[in-house]
């Protein structure tokens, strides 16, 4: 007995449900930067999907940059936010200065990765939050698939921050069902005419996105409302490497 052969229409339907194809309308949060939104398949961050972020190196600074990137995205959504952590080292004033109000955020501390993912899933199934953020170290493909399934159909964006593992290998070697995967690295910022620091600069890499090509871009850190910006090009004088470093007088 031969198995029934599915028709082309059924196959297309199956592909569409698997792919989340473009015919369906997804809620999207655009970044507001044409260079960035134009290169993203959805025109922004899809709000009913899972996205992964990671810092560049094994160090701490890029991890903080990834946190601020996430905070900037979430600041531009409206509604309560659930942030699942493994350890209590977040500094709320920093998130506030990226636009994320502390009264919106509910923090949950989980003991291990499995509990953290379960907490994220609970938040996604609640269907009333604006964003669910989790910081995990190692996430298997099946768990990301569950998160993606839980996120679909609602307006809650799931953002997974991969903390650097101790042995320092790339967290992106593990496959994942996330719609986009980002890597944030620090870049030298542009000097400012006054004695001080301008906004921080990042090298934002979209390693993989569903339905589009990877790309990278230099952006400035989010301002008080969580908006990213492109670094302004200095027309008059380029940064001279042999100059004495700019100093600040307090």
């Amino acid at each position: 007995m031969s198995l029934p052969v599915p028709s082309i229409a059924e196959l297309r339907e199956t592909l569409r449900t698997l792919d989340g194809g473009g015919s369906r309308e997804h809620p999207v949060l655009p970044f507001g930067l044409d260079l960035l939104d134009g290169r993203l398949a959805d025109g922004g961050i899809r709000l009913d999907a899972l996205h992964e972020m990671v810092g560049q190196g094994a160090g701490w600074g890029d991890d903080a940059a990834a946190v601020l990137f996430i905070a900037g995205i979430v600041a531009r959504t409206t509604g309560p936010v659930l942030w699942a952590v493994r350890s209590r080292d977040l500094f709320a004033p920093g998130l506030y200065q990226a636009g994320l109000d502390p009264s919106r955020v509910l923090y949950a501390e989980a003991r291990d990765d499995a509990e953290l993912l379960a907490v994220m899933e609970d938040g996604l199934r609640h269907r009333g939050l604006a964003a669910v953020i989790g910081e995990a170290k190692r996430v298997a493909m099946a768990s990301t698939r569950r998160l993606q399934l839980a996120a679909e159909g609602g307006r809650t964006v799931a953002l997974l921050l991969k903390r650097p593992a101790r042995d320092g290998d790339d967290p992106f070697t593990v496959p994942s069902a996330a719609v986009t995967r980002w890597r944030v690295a620090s870049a030298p910022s542009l000097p400012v005419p006054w004695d001080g620091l301008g906004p921080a600069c990042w090298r934002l890499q979209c390693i993989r996105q569903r339905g589009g090509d990877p790309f990278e871009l230099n952006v400035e850190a989010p301002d008080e409302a969580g908006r990213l910006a492109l670094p302004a090009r200095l027309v008059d004088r380029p940064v001279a490497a042999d100059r004495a470093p700019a100093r600040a007088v307090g």
Partner: protein
Amino acid sequence: MRRIERRHAPSAEADSRALYEALGAEAAAERAQHCSVPKEGGWRPGARWARSDLAGSGLADTREEVEAAIGTMPHHQRPPQRELGRTSVAANNPFRKGLSRPPEERVAPPSPLRELSRRTEAAEPLFRPGTRGWMGEDLQSAIDALPAHQRPRSGELSRKSEVIDHPFRPMPSDEVKPSLAQRAALPPLQFPGEDAPAKAKRGAALRGEAKRDRYRNDAPPAPLSLARAAALPPVHGPGEDVLVRRAMKSPRRSARDGHGGEAGYIAPPSLAQLAAMPAVQFPGEGPHPDNHGKSAPTAPTYGQGRFFQTGRTLGSVVGRVCRDEGMPAEPLYVPPEEPPLVTARKTGSRVEVAAVNPAARALGLTPGIALTMARAQVPGLEVRDADPEGDAADLRRLAELLARRWAPCVAISDADGLFIDLTGVAHLHGGEARFARRLLRLLARRGVTARIAVADSAGAAWALARYGANGPVTLAQPGAQREAVSLLPVAALRLDGAALELLARLGVDRVGQLLAMPRAPLVRRFGQAIALRLDQALDDAPEPLDPVIPPAAIVVEQRFAEPIASPEAIEHWLGELMPRLCRALAEAGQGARAVELVAARVDGVPQRLHLGFARPTRNAAHLLRLALRRIEEIEPGYGIDAMALRVRRADPLAPESLAPALADETAPDLAPLVDTLANRIGMARLWRFAPVESDVPERSQTQVPALDPPAPQVPAMKPDDVRRLDAREPDHPWHPRWPRPARLLRRPEQIDHVIAELPDQPPRRFTWRGKSHRIVRAEGPERIAGEWWRRTAERLAVRDYFRVEDEAGDRFWLYRRGDGLRSETGDLRWFMHAR
């Protein structure tokens, strides 16, 4: 003499050099011994000097060995005299209190006043008069061997011996005439403290002088003969026995002596003096028994002065003499150990006493007087705030308890009374009297004093309970309440204050007088209420009671014909029970806060599952989801016979609207989410951050619970409040003017190899976690000073924060301790606080 000394001078030098070398040899030997003796050379278990062989095995047993060991020790390590007889004692606890406090808190506690006047005693007389005196290193080593508090001052070292007559020598006239032999046995010289120390040992009064110890030089005195005992005066007061009186006969001068007698013994005023003193006095009036016959109390230091606090006051004495009608006939029993306690409440601008306890009532305080007057009357009064809501809640709880088990109809009559309807109930308790007694016992077990009156009508019962004259239980005969009520004062009818005052002015005191008057003019004068009250008291008018209904617990139960054991069956029945429970909750108008699932197993071990919710809820789907998540905790065993869902805790919940989507976009309800998360990880791991007005970064955020309780009502400012002048909103504590990082290190880590110009330049390079960074751009310093009002240690501390960026673009937030100008603000170390 001097010439001889000069000739011996070179030999003195040789001697000193020999001594010096000997000292050096000693030091070398001692270093070789690995001397581990502390400076005092005290004994502790395993001390090296006490061991016979210094290689360290076994302790020295005999005295000679010990002395030989001491002899071999250098002078400064020899233990003092008093250590030699000491048995082994544990060393000091290294973690004793007082060592771990910060330096500014190491202040000696204030010594009690009694200690300040006490003389310290020398343990061993250093200087015996008549000795040659010590010189040179003997003296120095002996002084060093003493503990610090016993070392003599420099002025004493050159003192010559003197003979002092010690003040404790007993007067020869009081002693039994010592025979010549006894007198010769007395040593010629005595030293202070040797005969009778300033501090008597324990039991000295009882022991008398019979026991000889090392403080005494005399032989024990002759025992008490009959003739001497007869000559002694009779016993004065309780507790005085012959020995004590004997000790008091000799005038001992002690530091606590006021007037030549032993401290503590003061002659009470004689009978004539007592008769001369009136009982009632005003301050400054004259001699008082409490002042020992004097007008004013003398200074209390030397044993004179107020001997007891009688607690007698004007108010109490007057109250005892003139008893007014409101007070009970016989004084209430005052338990002796209870202090007087009153509760106070604020009525208008006056703080008055709301309730008094029997001890306070015995002292003359009644409810209704001003608190200041009560405090003036009784100095040691305990005052607590009156809590009318708590009292009402307690009364309601008592009413519910009685309604469950004692009588079906229980109503609350007023703030401190209950009506119990005994129709058809009294025989169940064995009669009315028995019922009343059992109720009194129940209440007494709970610490409540009660008065119970049983009568035909509620009004009469109320009147008899409060104004009845006999005992705590009053039983009016079935038809005889008219006579019973007639004797009561008019306040026994529940009339308002104006009516009572008018009646008092008219001279109407008793209810009987009211009953005798014609009704019509009464009603015309006082209104309908008085007639109603009179009729209610006589059972002519009905008085319906509003009974208190005890709350019934909400339980839904399902029994099974056959025991179920499979998880699908349990899930199915949970799905059946939850909607039933929610319907029951809806009927009661409640939402569940805690629900317990009890699965009764075949073998009798019930499985319990507790579910808790942050907000009251009766959403069946939500409850079911939470219960199903934890269904694995139920072990069916051989099977489950019955499942019951009990509501353990419920709060009133208003009916919820069916279509919230029809209304405008409201904030999504986070309570179910919090419940779900709390049931998974616990409420302790859910929090929000709240800003704190503090510059110190670690303190500028605080964790608050996830679901905030309703904010307390902040009273609005009056229109002329001065705070209205400041119309500008204060800055948010996390204003972006002061940039902050996103993640903070748990503790600031020190960074090394920092090159920075002082006082206000950022570093040019540093090394952190092994990696070296060169700074390209920086901003700062932001000076954060310590909060002196929180901790005194922070008073001068200063941190200068810099935001720096290195060549690769990494940003760091680091600080330097200290402002660079003054050293007390910090030690100029650099720390990394955040990235």
